[in-house]
Structures are given as structure tokens and as C-alpha cells.
């Protein structure tokens, strides 16, 4: 199959209107807010050197925070603000998606706007400001009729820089729940779908380039006092915004939103759930690439309607439990506790995706390692890699305690790269997932946990509080419960890790449904 006729291009294209529209929407709102804050600040501080220096220093500090971290920071911040607002004023808002993304991006846009605003206003010939006064202008008239128009080209250059930064950084807002062109990139990275990665990169680069050129046209029009240039740039920008926003407007907000975390299994399962809902005549969309704690809060707040989580994850992260209980007991207690938050634990899918310490089969045999207890003797000379959250999770602490584990080095890795890394000997041990198809592919083994340090991780289907009594939804989902066994899920995950047309989440979800229920 040729690169260009790969059906994944069509699949990517089918998401474009949605992703692009949301990307433009959040970028535009962030830029507007950034301008609304920084332009007045630039004007207010133009004759006050001390506050001006402070402001620029603050904006520079914000700029040194990596975009992803800044975006991630706003989620807990807003979550806290939302809980305060609810407690004090009885109003609630969503700390998920649009709001945190817009605020973080707005903050990010401020430095170039501030810096150029101040430079532009301070660079005006003092003789002209004197002349403005001399012909009888008030300070305000001088600002509006002389200083701002003269500073405009320089300001516009700052706005242009800010716009390009915001459009680029907006691709990182996917993990906090804001749909953007980053959805292609995150999904592509997780499922090794390079077509999606390329598509997302090109689409966001193209958008940034187009906006940069159009704003550049306005800037040069202002600089050379050419109305046609300015007007052409303005019309271009307006046309671009309208063309990208209109398709996303008037979308039904009644549809069910299926959440997915940031790894391949989740992409496949969310596609499966979405297909099931659509097959039942319900309108449904998938919101993928959400961070592990973001997704639970989003469900609680009703920003997403359903998703698949794992019992051990919730046990540790949401219930903050460090004790381990037998599988059935843990599930029962989890169900009761979640019910207090009006979250429905609809049931188990049938497989477990637990953390497991994984090493190459040959090495295990050579060293006579079969359990984690056997591994402990060799750990001091070995390195271990885990995903981005593993080492900060209670399971890791429990493992270390139960077996007295102490490795020579620990590294964080993109989950999909871990298996290749351990297979090639780049690291000695990884904290992998039991349902991962790559375990079989790379001939690895998951070590036994005789002391039960790792809790059970049954895949469970959760419904948002507002869907507690939704019969149609539950009827549509029930055929999936208990149907997906570990072998099937591993095979599905192995398929999803491929790099061909049949490895897209949609394609694997269809294959999976064919295996477990459909014909």
C-alpha cells in the first residue's frame, strides 16, 4: 500500500474540521484575552519604568515555563478555584478543557505583546508627542490619535509573534481535555500512527504559517500606511477564522463524550464504546489523550460521560488506599465509594491491565528469575524504566517495600518505547502493563508478584453522575461487560501498536467487536 493511499489519511481528514475548529477557537480566545490584558498594561506602564521592568520580568518568567507544564498547572489550579467557588458561592465551572487551556495560552501570549507594546510606545519621537500637546490634545487624545497609531506596526509584530506561539503551544492542550490539532499528535504517538503525527504537525504548522503571513500583511500595511495591504490581511484573517469556526458551531452538545487516557488500549476501547453507542442510535464522540487524573475529574464534573479505568488505579489515586484487598472485595468497595460521588461502576470488561515488572524471557531464564522476589537480588545492578506516573504511584512504594527493591537507576519513558528499550537491553527492567501486546511481540515475561504488592487492575466501565439513570446508554454498553479477556485485549493492543492501515484505533475497535460480540 502506498504512503499516499493509506486510508489513515482519510481518517485523519475526517477529524480535521473538529480538531482545527477547536484549535482556532481556543487560540483566538487566548490571544484575545492576552491582548485585552497586556495592551492596557503596556499603555499604563509606558511612562513608569519600575512597574514596567517588573511586568516584563514576570512575563519573561512565565515564558521560561515549558508550555506543557504551564497548561498542566492550570488544571489543578482551576480545580481548586472551582471547588472554592462551589463552597462559597454555590456556583461551579468546569476546570477541564477550554478554560484551563485558554488561560494558560493567554498567559503565554503576554510577553511578546507587552514587550512590543512598550517598545512601540517608547520609541515614538518625543517631538511628535510635544506636537500633539502643542496642537491642543489632552493626554488621552494624544494616546489615541498619535501614540497608539504610531506604535501600531511594532505592536502588530508582537501580536504576530504571540499568535504563532499560541497556535503552536495549543497543540499541547490535548492532555487537559481541550480538543486541538494536538489530538492527532498525541494519538499518533501513543498508537505509533505516524500518519496522524505527520498530519497533526503539518496542519498546525500550516495554520501558524498562514496566520503569520496574514498578520505580516497587516503589519506591513500599517508600517507603510497602505490601506489595501492592511485590509487584505484583515479580510484574510477573518475568512480563516470563519472558515475554521463555522463547521464546529451548531454541533449537537447532546452527544455522549467517551473519554480516553493517553495510551493505545484506551484509544481502542474509547473507539469501541463510541461505535457501540452509535450502533444503538446514540450520538457519540471520543475525547482522547486525557491525563489519568484529569479524566476522572472530567467524568465527575460531567465533561465526559463514560470511560474505562482500572480498579487498582482508582483504589490508589482516588481512594488513596495503600492496603491491598482481594479482587472481588476491592471492586465491591470501589463501587460503593464511587456511588457516593454518583459515579456508576457499570461493570468489568473482563481483563486486567495491571502494572507488572517485565524483563526479556532469555535474561529471566539465564538468571533464574521468575518472581519479583527473585529479581530483588539482582536489582542493585539493574536499571528500571516506567511510564510518566509509575514512580510517583503508591504501587511503586509498595513494591519497593514488599521486596526491598533498589535499582541502580530509574528512568521515565513514553510507554510505547519501554518495551523496545527493555528488549534491546537499554534498560534492564520495565514497569509494563499486563495487557500490552508488546510483551509477546518482544518475547518478554511479566514477573509474578507473590506478595501481592500490586493491587488488581480490572478494566471497569465508569459512567458520569448525570448518566446514572440512563437506560439506553447502559443497555448499549452491557453486551461488552465480561467479554474481553486478556488474550483478546493483548492481541488488540498488539494490532494497535502496528504501523499500518489496520492499526488505527478505529480499525482495531472494529476488529475487537468482531471478536467479542459482533459478526
Amino acid at each position, binding site marked *: 500500500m502506498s504512503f499516499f493511499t493509506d486510508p489513515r489519511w482519510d481518517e485523519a481528514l475526517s477529524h480535521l474540521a473538529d480538531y482545527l475548529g477547536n484549535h482556532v477557537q481556543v487560540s483566538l480566545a487566548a490571544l484575545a484575552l492576552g491582548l485585552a490584558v497586556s495592551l492596557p498594561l503596556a499603555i499604563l506602564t509606558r511612562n513608569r519604568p519600575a512597574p514596567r521592568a517588573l511586568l516584563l520580568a514576570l512575563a519573561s518568567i512565565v515564558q521560561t515555563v515549558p508550555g506543557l507544564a504551564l497548561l498542566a498547572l492550570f488544571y489543578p489550579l482551576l480545580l481548586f478555584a472551582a471547588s472554592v467557588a462551589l463552597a462559597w458561592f454555590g456556583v461551579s465551572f468546569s476546570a477541564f478543557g477550554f478554560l484551563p487551556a485558554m488561560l494558560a495560552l493567554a498567559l503565554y501570549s503576554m510577553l511578546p505583546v507587552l514587550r512590543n507594546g512598550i517598545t512601540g510606545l517608547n520609541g515614538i519621537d518625543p*517631538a511628535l508627542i510635544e*506636537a500633539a*500637546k502643542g496642537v*491642543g490634545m*489632552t493626554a488621552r*487624545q494624544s494616546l489615541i*490619535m498619535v501614540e497608539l497609531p*504610531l506604535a501600531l506596526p511594532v505592536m502588530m509584530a508582537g501580536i504576530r509573534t504571540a499568535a504563532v506561539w499560541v497556535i503552536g503551544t495549543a497543540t499541547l492542550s490535548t492532555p487537559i481535555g481541550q480538543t486541538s490539532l494536538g489530538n492527532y499528535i498525541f494519538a499518533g504517538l501513543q498508537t505509533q500512527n505516524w500518519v496522524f503525527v505527520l498530519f497533526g504537525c503539518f496542519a498546525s504548522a500550516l495554520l501558524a504559517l498562514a496566520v503569520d503571513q496574514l498578520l505580516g500583511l497587516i503589519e506591513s500595511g500599517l508600517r507603510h500606511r497602505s490601506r489595501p495591504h492592511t485590509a487584505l490581511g484583515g479580510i484574510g484573517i477573518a475568512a480563516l477564522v470563519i472558515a475554521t469556526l463555522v463547521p464546529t458551531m451548531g454541533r449537537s452538545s447532546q452527544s455522549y463524550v467517551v473519554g480516553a487516557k493517553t495510551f493505545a488500549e484506551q484509544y481502542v476501547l474509547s473507539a469501541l464504546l463510541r461505535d457501540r453507542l452509535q450502533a444503538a442510535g446514540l450520538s457519540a464522540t471520543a475525547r482522547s489523550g486525557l491525563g489519568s487524573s484529569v479524566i476522572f475529574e472530567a467524568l465527575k464534573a460531567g465533561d465526559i460521560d463514560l470511560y474505562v479505568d482500572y480498579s487498582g488505579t482508582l483504589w490508589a489515586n482516588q481512594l488513596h488506599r495503600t492496603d491491598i484487598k482481594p479482587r472481588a472485595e476491592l471492586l465491591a468497595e470501589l463501587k460503593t465509594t464511587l456511588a457516593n460521588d454518583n459515579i456508576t461502576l457499570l461493570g468489568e470488561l473482563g481483563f486486567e491491565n495491571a502494572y507488572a515488572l517485565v524483563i526479556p524471557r532469555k535474561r529471566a531464564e539465564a538468571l533464574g528469575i521468575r518472581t519479583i522476589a527473585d529479581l530483588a537480588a539482582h536489582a542493585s545492578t539493574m536499571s528500571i524504566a516506567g511510564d510518566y506516573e509509575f514512580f510517583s504511584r503508591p504501587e511503586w512504594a509498595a513494591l519497593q517495600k514488599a521486596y526491598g527493591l533498589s535499582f541502580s537507576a530509574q528512568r521515565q519513558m513514553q510507554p510505547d518505547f519501554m518495551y523496545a528499550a527493555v528488549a534491546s537491553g537499554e534498560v534492564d527492567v520495565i514497569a509494563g502493563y499486563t495487557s500490552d501486546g508488546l510483551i509477546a511481540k518482544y518475547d518478554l515475561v511479566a514477573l509474578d508478584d507473590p506478595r501481592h504488592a500490586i493491587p488488581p487492575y480490572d478494566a471497569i466501565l465508569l459512567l458520569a453522575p448525570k448518566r446514572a439513570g440512563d437506560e439506553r446508554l447502559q443497555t448499549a454498553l452491557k453486551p461488552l461487560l465480561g467479554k474481553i479477556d486478556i488474550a483478546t485485549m493483548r492481541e488488540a493492543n498488539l494490532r494497535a501498536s502496528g504501523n499500518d492501515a489496520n492499526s488505527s484505533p478505529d480499525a482495531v475497535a472494529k476488529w475487537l467487536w468482531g471478536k467479542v460480540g459482533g459478526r
Partner: protein
Amino acid sequence: MPSRPMIGYAHVTKSFGPLKAVDDLSLDIAEGEFVAIVGGSGSGKTTLLRLANRLIEADGGTITVEGEDVQNVDPVALRRRIGYVFQSGGLFPHLSVADNIGITPKLLDVPAADITARVDELLELVQLDRTAHRDRLPEALSGGQRQRVGVARALAARPRIVLMDEPFGALDPLTRDALSEDFRELHRKLGLTTVMITHDMTEAILLADRIAVMRSGKLLAQGTPAELSNSSDGYVLELLRTPRRQVERLNALLPRSGAA
């Protein structure tokens, strides 16, 4: 001298830090007069001019304009009724010639149609072609044309007083001569009271009714050119010597052409 001067300075002082730019200076300018203030750079002549429309605030003394203490007049209103011609024009580069000229009437909320008519009238007055120059930006004009627009802008709100800050200094001699002659004519025709600052005594003698000589913030001498030549002050005499010497040398070098 009339009892009520158009502009009156009485014991005016202004310091910038340790520097006394204007030092206990008194000077009256009568209605219809054309007064030139002559002095070197740092003599305080620009400060003196700007005190009159409160672009600079005095430290002490009293300044009156049309009989009113300027401290009792809103500075913005004061500037709108006094024309001001800036050194090298001071035109707003983002506004057309017409918008530059019409700026003060616009600030005074004069109806747009009236401003348009007034701009055309002023363009004619300063001898600029209406259709050719109206919509141009200042950067498309020559230095002389720019200064004509500057004069037109100063006159737009029909002021009775015009202040000029070295208006013709940066122009080539031919343009300078034509422009200063034209302005002198406008001054007479419109019955203006004009105060012009210059470092060029020849220009002052040729244009002004009366000359005030400043040095280190003080008024050294004032009077008509003839009165000044009777001054006993060495600096004043030195300033007058230059135009005299120029005339003698010109007479010697240039053969008289034709009969008078």
C-alpha cells in the same frame, strides 16, 4: 506700549535642576506685533516661548495671555487658541496633509464639512495646490511644503497669537526666503500677534517689528533693529555685527544689476 499686552511676562523664572533657563524675565508683546527672540542655544528662548502656552510650567512670576493669567486657564484650551509652529514641522506622519491641518478644529468639535472648507482655504493661504497635496502624507512633501503645512495647521483654529519655534531654520535659503516673506504677509493680513524664536539675527531683522535678545535666561536688550544698534551691550553689538558685515561683503562681491 498699549496698556494690555497680548502676551505679558512679569518676573518669570524657570529652572531645570541647577540650570536657570529663564531668570526673572519681564517682556510685553503688544497686539499685532511681530517679535523675534534671538539667542544662542541654551539661552532659554525656547523655554520662554513654551511658557506662553504652558507646554512648560513656570516656577515663578506671572504670564498673561490676552490679559488672563495663564495659570487660571485650562492648558489644553489655552493651546487650542494659540497657534504653534514646530521646528521642522512636527507633522503627524500617519495623518494626511488635510488631517494634520484640520487637527485642532477637530479637537474643538468643528463639523467635518466646515473643517474641509477651512483646510482648502488654508492650503490656498499657504500657497499649496489643493488637489495635489490634500491627501498626501507628510513624508511625500519637501521640507518647505511641510513647513507650509505646519503654518497652515497653526492657523487652522483662527488663533490671534502664533508662536514659532525656529520655523525656517532647516530650510534651504531660497525656500526660507520665500516662506518667511509669505508668512510676514499672512501676519499682516490676518492681524496676528507673532512670537518667533531664531538664532539668526539677519532673519530677525528682516521679519520682526521688535527683537528681544536673550542670553543665559536673561533679557539683554529689546527694541526695533534701529534701537538695538544703540545698545551698549557687547553681545548685542556682536550679534548685529554679523548681518552688517554680510551686507558689506555682499555689496562688494555682487555687481549691481540694472537700474533701480
